[in-house]
């Protein structure tokens, strides 16, 4: 039974912009107050996810490891071995150096450590490519035990964290820096591995994750007189909601993916893997093809080829391929 979010659960009218990462701290704190297994372990970036106050109020549940991502992962593994449920938190861009510790200290030990990569994609636009995370989803997709959740808006943060606490596998949670549109109503339905259909459509399936789900909602409303797009928020990139994707693609016969990530290794690759084995249809992937540069986030989207124009062109291309 797939969970379908009817259009009535989506509300763009408020037009409110909220930073997804800022929503993390209060939710985590409210959970950690009653669930003492929860501990935050950071590489000196707890403040970036709004946890500084939590750390001061709860020093026994907050550990700042310094600028030391490998140590953050190892300490989290040790705490998990002893029965705690650590959230290891830093920028997504700085996790790459710690992936061997993720592999062995968490993966081989079969431990439950949830990892939070804030500032996903190019959402930390002005800091430039050293602070952009465009490989992180690929890193964690390739780690056997990990689920990968890319949070779409501030209202999805709470359900995503709550779902991650007792999910049997470790979870990578990707957050974003800049304020992005809030389009889910409060406490939207959420299950790890359960995608949400945001808009039904008949011409093409558009699969998005992260704030792009919200951007696409706006864009497809503008395009609605030309093309009927079925929009899916595939907030879980691993495991994919195979049922909902296959059912949608079987109806539309064409698929476009869009993500704020390198075009290889992320959502597009995951969907391509699924469809190539189970239901091949014309497909276009929208994602970064190289490193970005510094710039305001919303300007960069177009420059790096993940803005409205790129998605529209991909839809035109995939439709022409389907009709060819």
């Amino acid at each position: 039974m797939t969970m379908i979010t009817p259009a009535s659960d989506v509300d763009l009218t408020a037009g409110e912009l909220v930073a997804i990462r800022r929503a993390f701290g209060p939710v985590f704190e409210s959970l950690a107050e009653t669930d003492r297994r929860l501990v935050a372990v950071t590489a000196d970036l707890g403040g970036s996810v709004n946890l500084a106050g939590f750390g001061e109020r709860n020093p026994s549940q907050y550990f700042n490891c310094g600028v030391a991502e490998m140590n953050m992962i190892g300490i989290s593994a040790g705490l998990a071995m002893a029965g705690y449920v650590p959230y290891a938190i830093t920028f997504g861009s700085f996790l790459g150096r710690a992936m061997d510790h993720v592999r062995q200290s968490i993966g081989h030990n079969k431990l439950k450590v949830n990892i939070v990569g804030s500032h996903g994609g190019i959402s930390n636009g002005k800091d430039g490519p050293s602070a952009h995370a465009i490989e992180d989803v690929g890193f964690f997709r390739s780690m056997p035990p990990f689920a990968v959740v890319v949070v779409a808006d501030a209202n999805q943060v709470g359900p995503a964290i709550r779902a991650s606490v007792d999910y049997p596998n470790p979870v990578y949670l990707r957050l974003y820096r800049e304020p992005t549109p809030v389009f889910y109503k409060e406490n939207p339905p959420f299950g790890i591995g359960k995608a949400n259909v945001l808009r039904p459509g008949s011409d093409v399936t558009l699969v998005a994750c992260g704030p792009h789900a919200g951007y696409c909602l706006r864009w497809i409303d503008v395009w609605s007189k030309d093309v009927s797009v079925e929009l899916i928020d595939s907030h879980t990139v691993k495991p994919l909601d195979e049922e909902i994707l296959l059912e949608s693609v079987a109806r539309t016969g064409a698929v476009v993916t869009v993500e704020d990530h390198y075009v290889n290794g992320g959502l597009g690759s995951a969907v391509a893997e699924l469809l190539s084995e189970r239901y091949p249809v014309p497909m276009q992937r929208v994602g970064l093809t190289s490193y970005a540069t510094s710039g305001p986030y919303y300007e960069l989207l177009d420059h790096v080829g993940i803005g409205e124009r790129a998605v529209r062109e991909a839809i035109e291309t995939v439709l022409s391929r389907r009709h060819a």
Partner: protein
Amino acid sequence: MRSINELEAIARQCRVDALKALWCAQSGHPGSSLSLMDVMVALYHGGIAQHDPAHPDWERRDRVILSVGHAVPGLYSCLAHAGYAPVAKLVGLRQYGTGLEGHAKRGSFPGVECSAGSLGQGLSIGVGLALAARLRSDDTRVFVLMSDGEQEEGSVWEAAMSATKWDLGNLIAVVDKNGNQINGPTSVVMPTLDPIGDKYKASHWSVREINGNNMAQVVAGLNWALKAAGPSVLISHTETGFPISFMMGDYHWHHGVLTSELFLTAMTDLNEPVSDDPDETWMPGYQPVTQEETK
């Protein structure tokens, strides 16, 4: 409490059986399995570590993290002789389905606490375990066993700094300083690796140097570490492959294949009587591979 003589006898037997397993496997890491053996024996057989072989998951046990994961043949032998598994299981070292993994793997063999092999990760895990013990307000201690070459991993020093930040008096590290690593002597591979002890002192650890192949010094050192202020480390000076004549001090025995001839020499070095040709005296449970099977 066992005497030093009794512990030395156990260490000898653990070395014999580690080498028998390594001979069976025709691969593996004898150098550090043997250099680190006295420390492992003191921990598990000398009353240093709180543990219960009948209940490997006992919550109040001390955690022993073998960060130098390739020394695990030595640990298997030490654990087996402590009662965690039948000694006859050692015949399965590095064989499919036996659980005697080539590098330490959590849950694969009773008493093995942590996966390792990619070096430099155990000390951070030890910091996490030591923090957890403090959060639970229990008296468990954490021992992290590392090699000297492993100190070249930067993550060791990330962990070392954080251990003093949180003043983890329940964290005890041992650096098995056998002076060798896979491609050469540590002094050649990384000339400024030494002085290791001073590097820990600079991070405000309690540091003591011992002869790690002298059981009396090992026991005294570990007992000192249990009482030392803050996190403590023993720089444990050892010999690669101790006390095997052809291995001692030779970095090539970081990893190596024991031919039958070398195996017999090693058994002679350890005063272990075995037959001239492979049989059950070479390894309990050993069965010669027939020509039919090798086709």
